[in-house]
């Protein structure tokens, strides 16, 4: 036996000795991944920060803050004060309120972009990796073609055709990121499809669609999860870039990117307004890549089960 002989039977049947340690080790691999992740302090801080962001995005409306769109033209571009902890912008709107509102917009936009990228990239990647042949060749050439274009330029082109707006921008960013998910999905599916258990389900007459969904996808989920975590960071940056250029979120709504744009427009009058949204972008992108790193390390060789 080359496998870990944790429960190998040497005594004759009935092999009842096995039953003893069976229950405690169920889902051992999953809990091992979680345990490793919990030991990674950087990843845990990042996860905590992301959880906080999600909380703010969900419940920000309940905070005792001024209306993010209420203008106070007398107090424009003021620095931090007791009334306005993070100051006001060029219309005298409370920066903290806008930052909280923008958190929601930014996270929803990132989710939207991620969803588009995953829905486009993952199924095709799994299919190409599993089926191979001409399907793989054609899909991979398309993915390579998309990857060879500078991402932001491609997104600009798509938004240019579809018109500005947050949803259009996020669909464009999703298309830009889809080839990355395609590639990760494809290579994961390729290695999983050579596993004996895939051959075994094929020998069982299981249809291809079901093999992909029920066997290839769950066993490829590790690398895809890592990729998703990294991608969220990039997608937030991309959203900020498009919103900075005025192609993403439209006034009076705010995203972190559009707040940076407003701050940048008045940087000669006040240098402060640009800082809070820029810090949020930086911290969030850093948190997602830190979490991605942690996930990758924790999954390690376990990324496809025990």
């Amino acid at each position, binding site marked *: 036996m080359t496998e870990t002989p944790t429960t190998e039977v040497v005594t004759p049947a009935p092999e009842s000795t096995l*039953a003893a340690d069976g229950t405690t080790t169920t889902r*051992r691999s999953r809990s091992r991944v979680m345990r490793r992740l919990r030991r990674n302090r950087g990843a845990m801080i990042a996860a905590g920060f992301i959880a906080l962001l999600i909380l703010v995005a969900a419940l920000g409306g309940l905070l005792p803050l001024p209306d993010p769109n209420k203008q106070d033209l007398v107090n424009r571009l003021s620095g931090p004060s007791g009334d306005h902890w993070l100051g006001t912008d060029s219309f005298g709107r409370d920066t903290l309120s806008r930052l909280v509102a923008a958190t929601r917009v930014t996270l929803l936009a990132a989710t939207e972009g991620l969803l588009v990228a995953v829905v486009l990239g993952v199924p095709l990647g799994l299919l190409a990796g599993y089926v191979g042949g001409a399907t793989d060749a054609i899909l991979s050439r398309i993915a390579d073609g998309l990857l060879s274009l500078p991402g932001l330029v491609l997104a600009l082109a798509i938004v240019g055709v579809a018109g500005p707006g947050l949803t259009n921008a996020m669909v464009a960013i999703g298309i830009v990121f889809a080839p990355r998910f395609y590639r990760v999905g494809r290579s994961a599916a390729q290695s999983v499809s050579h596993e004996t258990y895939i051959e075994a389900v094929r020998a069982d007459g299981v249809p291809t669609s079901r093999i992909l969904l029920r066997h290839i996808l769950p066993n490829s989920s590790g690398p895809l999860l890592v990729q998703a975590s990294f991608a969220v960071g990039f997608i937030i940056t991309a959203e900020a870039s498009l919103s900075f250029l005025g192609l993403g979120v439209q006034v009076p709504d705010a995203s972190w990117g559009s707040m940076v744009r407003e701050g940048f427009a008045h940087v000669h009058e006040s240098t402060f307004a640009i800082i809070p949204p820029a810090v949020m972008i930086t911290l969030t992108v850093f948190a997602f890549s830190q979490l991605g790193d942690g996930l990758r390390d924790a999954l390690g060789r376990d990324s496809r089960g025990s």
Partner: protein
Amino acid sequence: MAMKALPLPTSPDGDVTDAVLTVTDLSVEFQTEHGRVRVLDGVDLQVPSGKTLGLVGESGSGKTVTSLAIMGLLDRRVGRISSGSIQFEGQDLAALDARQLRRIQGAKISMIFQEARRSLDPVFTIGDQIAESVRIHEGLSRREAWKRAIEMLQLVQIPDAERRAREYPHTFSGGMCQRVMLASALASRPSLLIADEPTTALDVTVQAQMLRLLRTLQEEMGLAILFITHDLGVVSEMCDRVAVMYAGQIVEEGDATQVFGHPRHPYTEGLIQSLPESAVARGRLAAIPGSVPPAHAWPQGCHFADRCRYAVDACRSGPIPLLSRDGSATRCIRADELSLAGVR
């Protein structure tokens, strides 16, 4: 142990109603860097209903390709069946498309593999994996399929089946995994089981239990088994008939006791003599010199000639047919003049 001699696949007028599976003149070609290479060369096989046919040979002789071809699992990108038929329950499997094959795979013909642990999907519970097959093939509800899974686990003598069904493969030992595979393979009550070296990775005591279980279930279910192995000891224990494979061809076929007692092909003799058990009697372990040549380098004449100590010029002059006599067959032109040593 001695069975009645079965009609041979090589006689086309023979009565084949007794066979579950009849493979006739099966050839498979692979696309390789040496071009199109024939890896199976006119394979004839018959698996008698309710009985076991052992398929033996060295690594690279084509045993596994044969089983994959029967199951319709050849990778279509590299391999294809170039000629021959695979008759199973009135259908030619070689002529079916993927969709039609799926109705047979896992339902009428099941397969178990050498590495049972790796044959189980690590992200599903044991019960789910067994249930999946019956849900697909018999359209059972989730609850009925789960019930069947538990029954099957009990059938393969896994203690505490209801609780074990909820566990994941990594909590099972190698021997237990193989039982689970067997439970899964038999869940849809197939008439043929293809067992590709099912006991090779198990240690000896577990292996013996597994073989005993297999025989018991075979009798209960009237199952025909195509048992692929390179372990002659297992063959003599398990099989009623045996087919010896070498370099893509069947070189000898017959009743198991007959083939081992009185081999009629030098390769079979070589296999028997390379058993450590025979070395105990002889004092020295004999090995067949050389190794199986790669498929693109197979000779025109007898594929075994270059490693055969009985080879004469006539062996190399052209293709050697499978000659049958009295319910057994050999692909050796000198079979009648040689007196080859069997198992004593």
